[in-house]
């Protein structure tokens, strides 16, 4: 008797192929099919994708070369104590793997990404290069207005390079489509938290990351197809520990590392991988009543896009937490999802994640939530130590968690 087939397997295979398309052949095909319309790379963590889609630009989230790019030239630009993602990104740029892109946007994630924006401008002067300064004050008349200027500026610069003019109707349409995607990503997260054996973290990762290189509408088709087929998957539940992974929002762990965590007795019920696609809680508040945010107004789609970040941006290490308590959002997620522990996984030399970590640990300690931590690099190849550590952690939670 043959094993039951997984109806989701082709969808996951497609998502994995997109992950492995480091030379961006899919992006080049999209450009060819759209009359050479621009495609723009976006470094982690966050830039609002609907802005780009509204002006006919394909936004492509770039996460470096992972564990599949041999970094030689890129290392010549960085000292040993700087994280890995800028090296592999430069390697890919110099090696022609990013040629399909017409430019890059560098959000204000950290000093390394910030300085990379200037390096890019010098290394690739023929390409567009922009620094997106995300606000660290979130009142509408302050950070809100500033952010609006930033988005308008970038849109205008891209229009000058061949993009369509920013039009309120098209932006509204792009936001509506993005909100549909966001709802589906929320469904995906819900399924994974409810039945982590039906949708593993590594699979959710692939499905989400496909959105890094696909137009929103195509990503929606993929997500809808998966969610429709998921109930038919042949699955087997395991008695794993439910954990949340935090700290991997920029430089991504290799997919093998995520699978290693799964094999070590952990169900990863939530994470902050590729936060750029999930950095907003809920929908972009187009036409919603969000209280007085003057001079911004949710009936204006650009204002709605701004308010989605200032009002609904997730609490993460790159965002200033003005009034809240550090780690509170994580503790709430642990409670909501019924997680039993947290794995703090940060890339080596990642200032935001590692400087945040003592505060996060304090919050977890105060809440009595067990955690463990390790560091990785995007090209880490040895997972055995991490498997043993995560395995010991899951065992200890199982054995002593209720004590």
């Amino acid at each position, binding site marked *: 008797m043959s094993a039951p087939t997984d109806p989701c397997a082709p969808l996951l295979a497609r998502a994995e192929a997109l992950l492995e398309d480091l030379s961006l052949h899919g992006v080049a095909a999209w450009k060819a099919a759209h009359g050479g319309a621009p495609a723009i790379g976006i470094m982690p963590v966050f830039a609002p994708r609907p802005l780009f889609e509204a002006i006919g630009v394909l936004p492509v989230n770039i996460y470096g070369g992972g564990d599949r790019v041999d970094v030689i030239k890129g290392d010549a630009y960085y000292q040993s104590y700087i994280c890995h993602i800028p090296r592999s990104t430069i390697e890919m740029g110099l090696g022609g793997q990013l040629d399909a892109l017409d430019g890059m946007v560098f959000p204000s994630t950290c*000093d390394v990404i910030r300085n990379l924006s200037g390096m890019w401008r*010098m290394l690739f002067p023929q390409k567009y290069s922009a620094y997106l300064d995300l606000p660290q004050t979130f009142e509408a008349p302050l950070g809100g*207005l500033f952010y609006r200027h930033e988005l308008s500026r970038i849109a205008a610069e891209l229009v000058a390079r061949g993009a369509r003019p920013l039009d309120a109707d098209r932006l509204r349409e792009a936001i509506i489509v993005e909100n549909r995607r966001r709802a589906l990503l929320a469904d995906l997260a819900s399924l994974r938290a409810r039945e982590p054996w039906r949708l593993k973290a590594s699979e959710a990762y692939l499905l989400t990351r496909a959105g890094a290189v696909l137009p929103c509408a195509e990503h929606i088709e993929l997500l809808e197809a998966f969610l429709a087929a998921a109930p038919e998957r042949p699955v087997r539940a395991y008695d794993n520990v439910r954990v949340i992974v935090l700290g991997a929002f920029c430089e991504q762990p290799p997919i093998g590392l995520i699978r290693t965590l799964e094999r070590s007795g952990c169900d990863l019920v939530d994470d902050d991988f590729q936060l750029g696609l999930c950095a907003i809680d809920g929908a972009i508040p187009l036409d919603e009543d969000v209280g007085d945010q003057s001079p911004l107004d949710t009936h204006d789609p650009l204002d709605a896009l701004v308010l989605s970040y200032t009002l609904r941006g997730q609490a993460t290490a790159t965002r*200033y937490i003005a009034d809240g308590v550090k780690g509170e959002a994580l503790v709430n997620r642990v409670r909501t999802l019924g997680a039993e522990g947290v794995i703090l996984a940060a890339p080596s030399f990642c200032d935001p994640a590692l400087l945040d970590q003592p505060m996060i640990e304090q919050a977890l300690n105060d809440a009595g939530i067990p955690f463990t931590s390790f560091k990785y690099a995007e090209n880490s190849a040895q997972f055995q130590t991490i498997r043993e550590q995560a395995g010991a952690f899951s065992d200890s939670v199982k054995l002593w968690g209720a004590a």
Partner: protein
Amino acid sequence: MSTQTASLSTPTTARAAGPAPAAKDLSQQRQKEMLADYFEKLTRAKEAGQKIVYTFVPGNLNELIAAAGMMNVLPEINALQSGMRGRSGGYITEAEKHGHSEDVCTYVKCDIGMMLNGNIGPTGTKLPEPDLLLLSYTGCFTFMKWFELLREHYKCPVAMLHVPYQPEGRITPDMRKYIVDQLEKSIIPALEKVSGRKLDRDDLAARMALSSKAEDDLVAVWESAKHTPSPIDGYFGGVYYIGPIFSAFRGTQGAVEYYRELRAEVEERIRLGLGPVGPDGPIGPERHRLVVEGPPNWTSFFDFWRMFSRENAVVCASTYTRVGGLYDLGFRHDPDRALESLAEYCLGCYTNLGLPSRIDLLEKYIREYQADGFLINSVKSCNSFSAGQLLILQELEKRTGVPGGFIESDLVDPRYFGKANIDNRLQSYFQMLDARKARGYA
């Protein structure tokens, strides 16, 4: 002839490593008295009802803080002082024991370690706790995390001033307006709330006028190094010259007098044809003129300096001495447009400039100061400075034909100052500069 090695900040341990310092210049004596007086006031601040603001050097709002009747404490300065006094290693270890990663900024860990050990400041007395953390988010992402960490400990309010980055090296009206709006709607109200009194805007303007006077004289001191031989060392000596204006004294009469005296002393050195004074006395005939990018190492500051001074290598310009303001590009605090001017000050600090602008500035220094070499001291702790420095090296060599040197160390973690390694590299570098001169390339 006096020496510039001695000041309040000269550590006992470092002083023991070299000859006893000679008599001080008037400006040095004044700086020492100013700092001693300030720390004495800090010690008594709480009992005097004085409110305390912790803030950072780049983008500091000293005139505003003082006009609000408050005193500042600068954690970076405390960290570097701990480094010079041989205490940073222990503080960093303490912080790492409390869960702070070995990968992150050692200024932060040194400050946390100092806090955990009673917050004893440079003069050996306890620093007052902050009533407000004024987070000037200028040129360094880590600042934000630093004050988030301190807030956890002190449980005091934080006022965030988000200063946009200058990726293209120019200030746009939107950037300026964003900062002015934050000052008006957020920062000034926060200061007034903590201090309990209304900001005196006339006092603010008066202080900014004083800042401008001191800035004129500081620029004259910096630019004296264009003279050959240079009368100053613009890096190791330079960190003393920036002391008052980068710390608590910008916008004070004391700073005006200090920089007036310093300028007169430097002009007298030019008149007498004298070079700078190094850690062990006058530096011999100027052999190499260098521009340096990056902060110094503080744990072995004098050993580091000797690696240059014994080779008669003089640093004529440095970017570290511009982290608290690029006055030599023309910026002055302007009493007639106080808040706009403060905004431009914050925006214009060196590490808030995009990499291409930083390279332009270094190229300008190499040419205008007629440097025959430039050196990058890449510090592990500071990605704001360090990320991109290898491209800076390549680009400057390409543009100027002047050879660059590259060494690695750290700010205040003694584990990352490899003395023999750095010394070897520098000796090789200086030999190469000699060889070029002998072949007529210089």
